[in-house]
């Protein structure tokens, strides 16, 4: 009898200590999505909403998600529309996802277009946020036409630290001027690719939004 009680106690202690010594999972993901709200691109935001819903379905407990707008000066916390780190408990995590969706739906309905487009500032802000999360896999999704239009005096011509960050350009629409001279479009993509790779990041372009499964690994 004593032997049985001792065995049970030992198993319970091992189980409890196993739970007590738990460490954060190293396989968490963090996603920061930048939404371009300049000019006519706001019309594309419904597509962004679908991508956000996809991300909400894909991300699991412990993962982080933040959505920020790209406006005249994007290197600011004020531009973050919603951010969340999902709770370890699945039920709580589902509640957070519902609340997040409500926030985004409300933002999409009320968004106003900005006169300038500070993409670099947004990416810098995203990089800072992602590094703070401590996640293993980091993603910056840029939902924009990648046409940067800075306010006079803003300095963005420096390398952005993007070590081990996957930067994915989504729905890079062609501008009217691109149709006249496609080299401008190719050049724009090439410039951003160089900037990301120089910062230590990985550059990808996904224009076909039916293939969202390639956005996030795992």
């Amino acid at each position, binding site marked *: *009898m004593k*032997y*049985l009680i001792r*065995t049970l106690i030992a*198993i319970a202690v091992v*189980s409890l200590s*196993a*739970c007590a*010594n*738990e*460490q*954060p*999972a*190293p*396989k*968490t993901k963090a996603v920061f999505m930048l939404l371009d709200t300049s000019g006519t691109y706001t019309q594309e935001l419904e597509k962004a909403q679908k991508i956000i*819903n*996809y991300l*909400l*379905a894909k991300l*699991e*407990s*412990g993962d982080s998600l933040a959505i920020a707008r790209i406006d005249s000066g994007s290197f600011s916390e004020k531009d973050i529309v919603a951010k969340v780190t999902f709770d*370890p*408990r*699945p*039920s709580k*995590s*589902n509640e957070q*996802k*519902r609340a997040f*969706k409500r926030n985004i739906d409300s933002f999409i309905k009320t968004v106003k277009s900005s006169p300038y487009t500070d993409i670099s500032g947004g990416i810098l802000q995203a990089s800072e946020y992602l590094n703070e999360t401590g996640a293993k896999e980091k993603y910056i999704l840029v939902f924009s036409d990648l046409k940067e239009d800075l306010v006079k005096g803003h300095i963005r011509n420096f390398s952005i630290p993007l070590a081990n960050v996957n930067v994915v350009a989504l729905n890079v629409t062609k501008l009217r001027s691109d149709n006249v001279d496609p080299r401008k479009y190719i050049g724009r993509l090439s410039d951003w690719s160089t900037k990301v790779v120089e910062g230590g990041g990985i550059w990808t372009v996904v224009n076909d939004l039916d293939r969202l499964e390639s956005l996030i690994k795992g």
Partner: protein
Amino acid sequence: MNTNNLLYMWSSSPALSIAVWFFIAILAMYLARTTAHKLILNAGRSIKYALRLASISIIKLENRLDERNKQVTLNIGQEAKERLIDREFHRVNDIVTKDLSGYPALHRKISDTLGKIEADYHGSTDAPPTPPNWIQAVETIARFPQQGDPVTAKILEGIQETIVKTQQETFKLYQKNSTERQQLLKNILPENRNLTQTLNEVKSSIVDISERSEFIDKQMDQYEKIRSCNDKTVRTLHASSLTQFFVSGLVLIIAILGGIVNFQLIALPMSEMVGGTSQIGSMQVADIAALVIIMLEVAMGLFLLESLRITNLFPAIGSMDDKMRTRMIYITLTLLTILATVEASLAYMRDMLAADNQALSQSLVGLSVVEAEFRWIPSIGQMVLGFILPFTLAFVAIPLESFVHSLRTVIGSIALSTLRCTAFFCRLLGNLTYQTGKMMTHIYDIVIFLPLQIESLLLTNKSKASTHKTDKKSNQIIEKIEGVLP
């Protein structure tokens, strides 16, 4: 000096140089022929003897292992038979205690019944009533001839009436007595039936004991055979062990599949309790917690069956006194029930979480959340499954015990076969090496066949010359002898 330099040492022409080297090599080989042959043959012989030695050692080891395996098989068989016989004796004891302990009471009951039947039987004896003594005198008087005397006739009529009346009364009395006797005989009937029933019960118990004793006799015969350690018994036990191994292995695989289903049922809700993000090593804490619960259920099942003396994996539990063992049965059963209840609630939580996930997915793709009809059916199904599976897993102790016991025999057999094969290959390799050595000496001779042929020719000529010389000397001696002789 590199290879090229060596090649062109004798001539600038490679063919010529190679030919010179070849000639030197052949010459060297011819000169070293006897030593080389000895070396090759000795090397082959040494390897052969070394491998034969190894083979003998392995065969000795194999014999020892075989003996040990036999002993293990016999011990397992002996233990199994002992348990079987012990159980049969317990059953016989139960029958004796239950049925035959009431034998004195039964005997008293039968004696009482027999006494009652005997009394009733005596009471029912037919005793015809004896006519009164004066009847004969009256009959004699009644036979007197009537000579027309009216007084005499009246007297005689009176006497006749009295006689008839007396006879009727006697007859009535006899009838009454007969009815009473019949009633007594009727009373014997149920008593007799009771007696037959009681005797049948006794007979059934006796027959049961008799059958059990026959079974025990059979088992005892087999037990004696096992104790006599003959090969046939060992082979039979070995075959039985293999069958047990495969059957219990199959049942264990089924149990493992059951465990996987159980795991799937509780892993998700466990993440609700211990969190879904933490990991230990490469495993999630929720998964480990679910596995711990399943393992605890299996352990409780093991202890329960051990306490019930169905299995015999932990002698410490089996040898506990009955009071302690009974307590342990209740404790393990209670813990198992608690775990089963916890699992049933976890299964319900899993269903709720799955429904929540489904609703979220629907809302994310823009569909309105539809409540599925008859959702309670899978919910109840999962709960029932969650409650039953722990008890089902508890029974894994029985095939586990068989598997563990038969595994010893199977591992022994595998080791024995491996040793036998190794010994055979050692001998084969030794013989092959020796024969290869012999073959190599012949190949050696083929390579240097030219000098060998020359040597052979020279030896032949020398032999011929020597023979010729010997013949000549012989002839001279013969001639001398012939000259000396008259």
